[in-house]
């Protein structure tokens, strides 16, 4: 095994990112630099990420991110062994900007180009941060995704279940929007919830009555809207305390559903008798302390190690893409000079599609 240094590029949602990761034989891999330029301010007025606005920003920011990442690592492009880029799933305009930039960089520098599935980037992160051995259980929970995966190998993921509609991060954002709180909704709803009474409004816990690990969050959003509108009808608005209680009730419902489904996913995973059982989380929602706490409790009950990578490597970043590129390259997977962007790209190609199973194929 030789030392490998990879450039990673990520642009699948609203973060333009580039990073350099180095892997030396017999040593823990090292993130030499990780640059993330967010777009929160650009989308703030719209209550969600606007794909065209995101694509416009990526097209003009990504090369700058790459240069910064190289500078911070003290390297030149010549020193890099390969270029890894998110090729999907995600917002096509941003993914396409990243893929074209990466193709230009790789072809001009004569370096191998590795296309990485964004979800695989998240799912392989515990190996970058904690050197986890396969198989481990992964809960990917973000603004765009929610699924339970058993990571069996660099290119082998088995999906146990996932959301059939919204992702939890999206539900947090919509909750914030419905209650007049700032975006992104995750931190603002969490802060309000900390001051609220979670018992005052009891929101539905969807799909708990059904077997399996699938989840649903869109009904929760509707229930919150109804509760809000009932208060507005009663007194013409909501008080600050109403808002805190609504946030607390909402967050408790999300945490309860995730805890129950995680418990079920853990049982399926433990049936494989893993040597060193571990549950890892990734995605922005994993930053929520209440949710993190219930996940820790659930995994400790069955003696499974709980791992949460540091937040900058939990949310969208390019270090995970560079690392996944290194893992794929070492496994002899893909030098794809003719790489194409894939807006829809399920990680587990064997599993039945959950969302968007139209003629374009499963979304994730």
């Amino acid at each position, binding site marked *: 095994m030789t030392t490998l240094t990879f450039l990673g590029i990520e642009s699948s949602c609203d973060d333009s990112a580039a990073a350099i990761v180095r892997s030396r034989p017999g040593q823990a891999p090292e993130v030499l630099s990780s640059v993330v330029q967010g777009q929160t301010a650009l989308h703030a007025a*719209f209550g969600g990420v606007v794909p065209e606005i995101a694509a416009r920003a990526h097209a*003009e920011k990504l090369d700058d991110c790459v*240069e910064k990442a190289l500078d911070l690592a003290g390297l030149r492009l010549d020193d890099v062994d390969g270029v890894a880029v998110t090729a999907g799933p995600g917002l096509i305009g941003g993914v*396409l900007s990243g893929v074209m930039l990466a193709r230009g960089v*790789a*072809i001009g520098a004569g370096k191998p180009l590795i296309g990485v599935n964004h979800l695989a980037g998240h799912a392989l992160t515990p190996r970058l941060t904690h050197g986890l051995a396969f198989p481990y259980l992964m809960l990917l929970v973000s603004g765009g995704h929610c699924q339970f995966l058993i990571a069996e190998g660099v290119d082998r993921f088995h999906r146990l279940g996932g959301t059939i509609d919204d992702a939890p991060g999206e539900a947090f954002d919509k909750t914030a929007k419905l209650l007049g709180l700032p975006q992104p909704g995750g931190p603002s709803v969490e802060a309000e919830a900390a001051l609220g009474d979670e018992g005052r409004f009891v929101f539905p816990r969807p799909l708990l009555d059904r077997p399996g690990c699938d989840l649903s969050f869109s009904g929760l959003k509707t229930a919150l809207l109804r509760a809000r509108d009932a208060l507005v009808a009663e007194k013409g608005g*909501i008080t600050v305390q109403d*808002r805190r209680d609504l946030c607390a009730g909402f967050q408790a419902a999300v945490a309860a559903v995730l805890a129950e489904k995680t418990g079920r996913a853990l049982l399926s995973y433990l049936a494989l008798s893993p040597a060193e059982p571990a549950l890892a989380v990734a995605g922005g929602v994993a930053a929520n302390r209440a949710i993190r706490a219930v996940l820790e409790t659930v995994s400790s009950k069955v003696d499974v190690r709980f791992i949460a990578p540091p937040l900058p490597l939990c949310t969208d970043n390019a270090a995970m893409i560079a690392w996944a590129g290194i893992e794929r390259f070492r496994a002899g997977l893909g030098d794809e000079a003719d790489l194409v962007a894939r807006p829809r790209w399920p990680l587990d190609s064997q599993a039945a599609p959950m969302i968007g199973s139209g003629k374009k194929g499963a979304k994730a």
Partner: protein
Amino acid sequence: MRPDPVILAFDTSAAHCAAALLSGGQVVAEAWEPMEKGQAERLLPLCQEVMAQAGMGWGDLTALAVGTGPGNFTGVRIAVAAARGLALSLGVPAIGVTRLEALAHGLPRPLTVVEDARRGEVYVQEFDPDPGEARLSAVASLGVEGCAPDVVGSAAEAAAAVTGGRLLVQPLPLTHAMALIAAGRLDRPQPRPAPFYLRGPDAAPPADPPPVILP
């Protein structure tokens, strides 16, 4: 500036994938393929084929010229992102050239470029002789706006009927003109190429207002 710049120009701003290679002051190889989709896959192989026709490769380039639109948003980003990536790895400048500048190249001025922008609108830019500000407009209002009467561009026929001027034609292929324009800009530093949209992103703020927060 080197005495004999070698410039690769490419454009995917509309339903085509096009490239031209300028060397010794002349376009020595070029290609233009009509294409509704698939430009992202085709662009770099096409560039390599064009360079190969002239016995050249990426390492021979002095600069890149890239079409920045206005046109198809995604198409423009495909070319601009590739140009930025190539500029970074090759260490050569990438120079953005708009479609409107390319259409006006070498034609007698004053001149108005009028390109179809769909939705009943046109992209308009006057050259008298220096380029004025490009904008989105309607053919019918060109007369009122007092544009230079001679016109060129895909909406020039309708525009000429309004302005009463001559209908001119750009004899050079788009990327050919872009390479020549970029060659004229090599003597001074250029900003990085950026998509020239001329049209907003079509996003509206949410219609439902947040609730009133009571004291």
